[in-house]
Structure formats: C-alpha cells, structure tokens
C-alpha cells in the first residue's frame, strides 16, 4: 500500500471512502463515541443512525419475532435504516469488558442477529472479550483496522483518537433521554440500561418528564463507581450481566449514600437480566425505605399511560421531603 494512503488511512487503490454505519442503540450508549472516532481515524465515513423514533422502531418490530426484547426490536430498525444508506454496518460483538461478567446473550450474538435482517456480508464486526486472552478492546480495534486495510501507524493513531474520544454515546440532552442536566429541588435516579434510559423513545421520555417538573434526574453513569459500599448486596453470587450489575451497583450506592430521594427502575419488556435484577434492585430500595417506582416498558408504553403513576411517585417524594423538613 502506498505511503500516502497509509497516512490518510484510506483503503487505497483509488476506491471511494467506505461508508460505515453505527446503530444508535444498545452498545452505542456504552462505547459509541469511541467507535465513531476509531472508524473516522481508519479513514471511513461514519454514519450514525438517528435517535430511535416511531418509524425506525416499527420497521424494526416488523423484522423481529414478536416476543424478542424491546431494545433488540429497536436495534433491527436501526440496522435496517443503515442498510439502505451504508456500505457496511459496524456491529461489534461485545462479550465482556470484565473477566467475571458478560453482556446479555443478545449482545453476544448481536452481529449474527444483524445478519438475520441485513445482508450478512455487510455486517462489520470484531469481538471484544475480556474473558479471553488477547480479547481486549485495543486488540479488537487493531484487528478492525487490518480488516479495513489500514496500516500500522494509521491504526495506532485511530486507537489513540478513540481513547481520547471517551466512552458513552454522545453528549447533551438528547443523550440523557431528554432530561436537562443541572439542579432541581429534589433528585430522582432513573435506573435502567443506558440504551433504555438515554433513549427518549424507548423510555417514553420519562427522564424528561421528571426534569420538566423540577426534578434533578440522575442516570446511572453519574453515580461514582466507588460509591457502593456493599458490592454483592448480600447475594451469594455476583450478578454476571455487565449492565445489570452496574444498575444494581448504582442502586446500592444510592441506597447507602443517599444520593437520590427516589429511584425509578425502568426495565424493558422481554429483557432477561431485567426480569431478575430489577426485582432485586427494587426490593433493596424498598427495604431501605426509599421510594421506588418499577416500570416495565414495551412498545405500547406512552407517557400518557404511565403519567398517573409518575405523578403519584413524585407526590410521595414531595410529601416525604416535606415531612423531613427539607
């Protein structure tokens, strides 16, 4: 490959720039910004699908089995949207980032699921698996670079750019489920998978609803990682799903350190880890005497349908704060 190409990181041979799509759902909310920087560094044009809306979601639902979980239905919609606009769709296989934990089975098979709705040859994937020797994210990114025909220097530069981009999936209100950051008279923690709580459509705008009514909304990534004093919360085995573990840990931190005045636990209909762990998190909060609201979201959810419950929850918090003289 000519030196010029290596510098720009393009695929060489005078080909057009490769358009790579990233679905703005599921793991985009963990590492999306990093992947955008990485792929740009490797000389690709990056297209991120728009935030989930009714059209994208319904297309996805039409492509899925009726009883698969809500976020995967949305994922199929995003894949389909990108399929019509991109050369390749980047769907990494995010197996684990911690040796004793997994992401859920659907994450483990995500590229294969994508290949069930888009042409299999379009799916661009690498495996990130901390359980395996040589399964680190850096190795996976380097493998991706080689797959795209980039040279060693370009790959190193792209990985450095990715590391500098930070984690998460974008910034600002849109990435916080529409909730404004900042202060409020009371604090409500909205706990749930980031691809649920930070997706305004899937979460029916619950975070925004709270913040519009003067609450300070706390999402789980705003809870410091070392805030939890009891790691396993008395369970005899640690939770082995990464996202559920983090949610439960955040719940424990809130309960122990009084970081919020109430907890709303959002779970997705059909989500396996949620079906177990949301129950544990809600029970933990209830036992500690913290107001807790458990909401299961599905494609028929709307803010109108849950408004009464949200209002009752807010009233309860307000009443308790008044009693406590705050």
């Amino acid at each position: 490959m000519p030196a010029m190409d290596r510098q720009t990181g393009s695929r060489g041979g005078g080909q057009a720039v490769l358009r790579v799509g990233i679905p703005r759902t599921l793991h985009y909310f963990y590492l999306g910004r990093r992947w955008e920087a990485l792929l740009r560094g490797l000389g690709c044009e990056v297209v991120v699908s728009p935030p989930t809306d009714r059209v994208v979601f319904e297309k996805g639902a039409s492509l899925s089995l009726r009883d698969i979980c809500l976020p995967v239905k949305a994922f199929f919609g995003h894949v389909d949207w990108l399929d019509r606009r991109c050369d390749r769709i980047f769907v990494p296989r995010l197996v684990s980032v911690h040796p004793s934990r997994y992401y859920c089975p659907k994450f483990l098979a995500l590229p294969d699921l994508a290949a069930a709705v888009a042409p299999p040859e379009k799916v661009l994937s690498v495996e990130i698996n901390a359980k395996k020797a040589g399964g680190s994210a850096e190795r996976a990114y380097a493998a991706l670079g080689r797959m795209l025909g980039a040279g060693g220097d370009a790959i190193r530069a792209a990985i450095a750019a990715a590391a500098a981009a930070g984690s998460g999936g974008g910034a600002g209100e849109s990435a916080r489920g529409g909730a404004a950051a900042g202060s409020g008279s009371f604090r409500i923690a909205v706990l749930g998978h980031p691809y649920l709580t930070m997706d305004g459509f899937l979460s029916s705008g619950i975070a925004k609803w709270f913040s519009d009514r003067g609450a300070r909304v706390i999402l789980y990534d705003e809870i410091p990682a070392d805030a939890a004093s009891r790691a396993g919360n008395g369970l005899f085995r640690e939770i082995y799903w990464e996202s559920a573990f983090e949610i439960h840990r955040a719940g424990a931190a809130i309960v122990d350190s009084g970081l919020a005045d109430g907890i709303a636990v959002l779970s997705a209909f059909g989500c396996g880890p949620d079906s177990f762990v949301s129950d544990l998190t809600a029970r933990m909060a209830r036992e500690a005497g913290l107001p807790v609201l458990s909401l299961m979201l599905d494609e028929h959810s709307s803010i109108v349908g849950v408004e009464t419950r949200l209002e009752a929850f807010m009233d309860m918090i307000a009443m308790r704060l008044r009693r406590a003289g705050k």
Partner: protein
Amino acid sequence: MKVTYPHVGDLTLALRSMFGNLGIDVVPPPPPGMKVLKTGAIHSPETACLPYKHVLGELILGLEAGADTLMLLGGRGPCRFGFYDVMQNEALKALGYSFNLVSTDNPDTLRNLVREFAAVSPRNSLRGIAWEVYLFFRRVEAMDMVHRTYDRIVPRNLESAGRIMAAEKERIAATTTLRGLIAARKTAKDVIESIAPASAGRPLRVGIVGEFYTVLDPDTNFHVERAVKSFGASVERGVWLSTWLNDRLGFMPFTRSDRKRCKRIARPYLGFSPGGECVVSIAKVIEYAREGIDGVIHLLPFTCMPELVAATILGRVRKDFDIPMLELTIDEHTDGTAVRTRLEAFMDTLAWRRRRRLDAPKEAFPKT
C-alpha cells in the same frame, strides 16, 4: 436432613435411585403440573422464564412437605439459568423459609458435584459416592438410549407403547450395579425394538429442538412428542440429558463434546455461543435439513434469551435449507388445545410436502 431437588424429565427418576443408594433422605419433587407452576409463578418476577417459575414452585412445595435442604445446579451465565439459585434463595428467604442451599456452581466440575453429594450423604467414602454419581450418569445415558430408540418408531398402540417405555426406564432406574445396568439396558433396547409399528411405510420424521427444560419435560411441552407420534410421525430429538451432563461435567472423558461439534456446524450462522441451547438448536436444524427430515419443532419458554437468538437466526436457516419449522413459545398461560391445533396444521403441511415431493418428477423441484 431432608433433601429436595427440581424435576427435569427423567432426571427425577435417575436421581431417586442415586439418593436411595447414598442413603440420602429425600422429599421427591411434586408431580409436575399446574399447581407447581402457579405456586412458582405467583412468587416469581412476571417475566422470569418458565423453568424458573417451575423450579421455584417445586422448591416451595418441597419445603412445605418437610424438606430442609435444596440441591440446585448453579452457573455463571450468560443465560438466566445460572442465576436461578441466587434468585430462588432470595425469594424463599423473603417468604420466611429457613433452609440449607447446596448449589453445585463453583467450580462447575464433576469433582465439585461429588463433594456436594458427600456433604449431604451419611456415607463417608468419597470413592463410593463418586461411583454412585458415575452410575447415575450411566443410568441417565441408558434411559436416553431407550427414549431415543422409542422416538424413532411409530407404535401402533401409543398408550401401551408409552407404558412399556416407562416400565423399561423404571427397571433401569432400579438397578444398583453396573453389570445389572448394562443387562437392563440391553433388554430394554430389545423390548422397545419389538414394539409393533403402526404401518410398514416410511413415516414422516419430525425434529424437536429448543430450550433444555421445555424439550425434556413432557408435562411442560404438552407431550409434544406423543402428539407428533399420534399424527403418525417419528421423532428425532436434539436435546438429551446425558449429552448435556456430559458436555457440562465431563463424565466420559473420551466421548466427544456434542456442543463443540454443534458450534462448528452452526458457525456460518452464529459466531459465538450466547449460552443455553442456542448453538445446539441451530446446529441440529442444519443437520436435520441435510438428513432430509421433514420438519422441525422449536420449543422455547417465553422470553428465553438464548432461544430467541436461535429463533431469529433460524429464520435465516429455514430459508436457506427450505425446511418447515414450527416455533412453539410456552409459558404458564399457554393452552394445550392451541398447541394441538397449530401442531395439526404443521403436520398437515409436512404430509402435503412429502406427497408433493413424491408425486413430482425430480427435476421439477430443484434442490434449494
């Protein structure tokens, strides 16, 4: 100390004789059915998977019947099965039961399993216990062999044939020595093979794959095997207790791992095993299609994560191999009549396809 344990297909029968030989006092799981399931379901999270609710129901009824020790298999994911014991421990504690929980999860090895049995057995020879555990596995294997042989025939009289198979399994379960077991196994095979077939023709062949518990437990899957046979078809089942035990615990070090083989077959469709029986389901459907099996039934509990992955991917496999499939999702609200109606329509499709293939000149239907 009184031990209770969950019921999974023939496991109960095989465990019963092992516990007896080890002198462990047991409260056998209650007969499966709606009472068990409803008991479990009211104390379970709403969208927990069906086997969880079933097992919880059994544990509650077992504790009510006087058990004080629970024996469970644990795990480390990624499927929910590995977290059953933790959740059930929490649920039963919240209900106010006091009990001792023995979970064979850490590490998930044969050595550990033997140790767990030693902990609850009054016998103290570790070697003797190891031998009993080995015999237990051989009994399960023999029962599976009997069942597999039975699956491949379509008996003239389903009722009596079913009774004959059950009796042979009982005889295997009652054996106490390896020699006796091998003899019983041989007799059983001969007996099953001598059952009168319904017709001399080549019956339709139906594969059954899916989630472990749902496939193995006839009371959960509405006796789908018997129903398939009642339509005059033979059955090829993709999930076996002995295979699962061997792949997981390595009873027979020289038997090849079926799971590894399945991973290889499923690779073009699934690059990574997401737990449960997902790879097995996909691999077996591919295998069945290559063997020319007429159709496949895919059984899964509602919200089962690995099997929903499999079901999505099987949509692709089914098109690529042109094999008819019936997907049956089961939970505590599933109705037996609805299952029967869908099965009937499916069997009609298979019969129609078979006729069409036989009637048509070969070249009119190019192989897809």
